[in-house]
């Protein structure tokens, strides 16, 4: 298993999983989110291709109420 950091929390992730898989598991497949891996934006078009690697630091963000 890979160890990753997802939104600040350490987790494990099966080898071969892609960002697209991770988003689907988290229930975000149909939601408007943006993803950053190791401080680099990964565009939506690349989510299905980008494999999750050992030590990846992933941020998933969305829009919410703010001033």
């Amino acid at each position: 298993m890979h160890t990753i950091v997802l939104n600040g929390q350490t987790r494990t992730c099966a080898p071969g999983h892609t960002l697209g898989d991770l988003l689907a598991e988290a229930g975000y497949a149909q939601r408007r989110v943006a993803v950053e891996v190791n401080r680099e934006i990964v565009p939506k078009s690349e989510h299905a291709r980008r494999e999750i690697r050992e030590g990846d630091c992933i941020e998933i963000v969305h829009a919410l109420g703010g001033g």
Partner: protein
Amino acid sequence: MNAQPKLAVAFDDALVIAGKTYRSRLLTGTGKFKDLDETRRATEAAGAEIVTVAIRRTNIGQDRNAPNLLDALPPQKYTILPNTAGCYSADEAVRTCRLARELLDGHSLVKLEVLGDQKTLFPDVVQTLKAAETLVAEKFEVMVYTSDDPILARRLEEIGCVAVMPLAAPIGSGLGIQNRWNILEIVENAKVPIIVDAGVGTASDAAIAMELGCDGVLMNTAIAGARNPVLMAAAMRKAVEAGRDAFRAGRIPRKRYASASSPIDGNIG
């Protein structure tokens, strides 16, 4: 011979930001409301066309089915203005804007806000300038929150910000415009829209900003924190419109002594 083709002009006092035309000069935030339904109803009552949103981490496993702000305020209907509220450095702010652009399908209009301290929430103007330079270079259209300093406002315009947004008073304070001479100086020197952002408490504060010649007012707490947010949103809409009309109409000068409204000649007796 030289007749110009007449363009249909339905509205002659539009606000133009980064080439896009808006009818409403009241921009609203979407934080601190009771729920998304209240957010939507207040936004509609305000007549706002530009609404700010925050960019935050999702709660993994918790908000799977939670209603989404962008369902209540769809980007097809509103101009979504992602902000960098809560950022205390230029790097954080730039990173947030890049995420926002990805989130909103390449949308480049952002509200830049880099804070200096948690007690006052005053902007860190050094970091704000630095972030603005980077964002403009990366083709963002930057609406920038800043202090009410005319020199700084001019500098931010020179960098290429599409709107400069000086505070009226500290964020959420409701104190109204504290330094109207500075705001007036900023307005008179500007070629980009000047939008008072933060510190408005009630309708008259918004009207004063508009009477000074500001191009718009951005507020959140004054509406969301009111006892009746939807009613306050409607009041703010009227105040912004009234203040704008008064500015355009041109007020009379202030005089120390009276000046009769009725004719002096022809009194009976």
